């Protein structure tokens, strides 16, 4: 099995080759949650998640809203 290593929120993350951003968000149990996602500092709207295959060294950012002033 070929795997790729990407970065998710600053930490290394290994997944099977050919996995999409949608697969990743699902595996993190975040589908349907109010999150926003960027890869390599480019925001990827959720309709584009299934078509975006994760490549080695992609830097994925998954964010939420938290309390702040």
């Amino acid at each position: 099995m070929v795997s790729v290593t990407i970065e998710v929120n600053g930490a290394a993350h290994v997944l099977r080759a050919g996995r999409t951003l949608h697969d990743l968000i699902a595996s993190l149990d975040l589908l349907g949650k109010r999150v926003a996602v960027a890869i390599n500092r480019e925001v990827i709207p959720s309709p584009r998640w299934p078509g975006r295959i994760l490549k080695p060294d992609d830097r994925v950012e998954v964010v939420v809203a938290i309390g702040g002033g």
Partner: protein
Amino acid sequence: MNLNDSPDEVRPAASEAGLTIAGRTYASRLLVGTGKYRDFDETRAAVDASGTEIVTVTIRRVNIGQHAHEPSLLDAVPPDRFTILPNTGGCFNAKDAVYTLQLARELLDGHPLCKLEVLGDEKTLFPNMPETLKAAEALVKDGFEVMVYCSDDPIQARILEDIGCVAVMPLASLIGSGMGILNPWNLSLIIEQARVPVIVDAGVGTASDAAIAMELGCDGVLMNTAIAHAREPVRMARAMCLAVQAGREAFLAGRMPRRFAASPSSPMAGRIA
């Protein structure tokens, strides 16, 4: 300019219609942050007690592998009920601030209203104005409606307005300091010239500070710590709601001139004996 004696000269067109930002009008002139509360129940109770319609939130990385099923802030303060104002708290340069707000816009279904703050250093959390201006320009160009935390410098405020920011939000004193309105004269200079709402952001410590800001002619006040770190946050939220209303009413009413000498309230004529 005369700070207290002739407030009508400061903003003759003041209206009671509410606070209008980027074409939307809000009945409440109080904006509140959501940080530093014990839990989301307390956050929501304070938000409700404050009467606010605009609630600011911060954007942060999801804690991967944890909390996937825990309640989220936006369940407690839902976007269909409140105007959510994403902020760039913790950003120290224009690039990070712009990126953060692009993510926020996606998170909030394309909602363009945002609070830009680019901080200078961790000790003062004072705004880094060159970076703030850079970020404001990029964001306005990208279609954002930018409410901007800034120094209490009338020149910087004017530049931000010229860039196209929808509100300028000078600090009254350092973020989280509770030191109150330290330079009312500078705030008045900003208020006097502004064509967009002026909202005091940062430094309010208690209700009288909020009232003073509003009496100066500010269009609104944004606060977080003053409510969240009060002994009873929900009660303080209510106090702030009343203080902002009282300050606004006093501003519209126009205060009496300050006089050095006493002036009796009862007529001197017709006294007994």
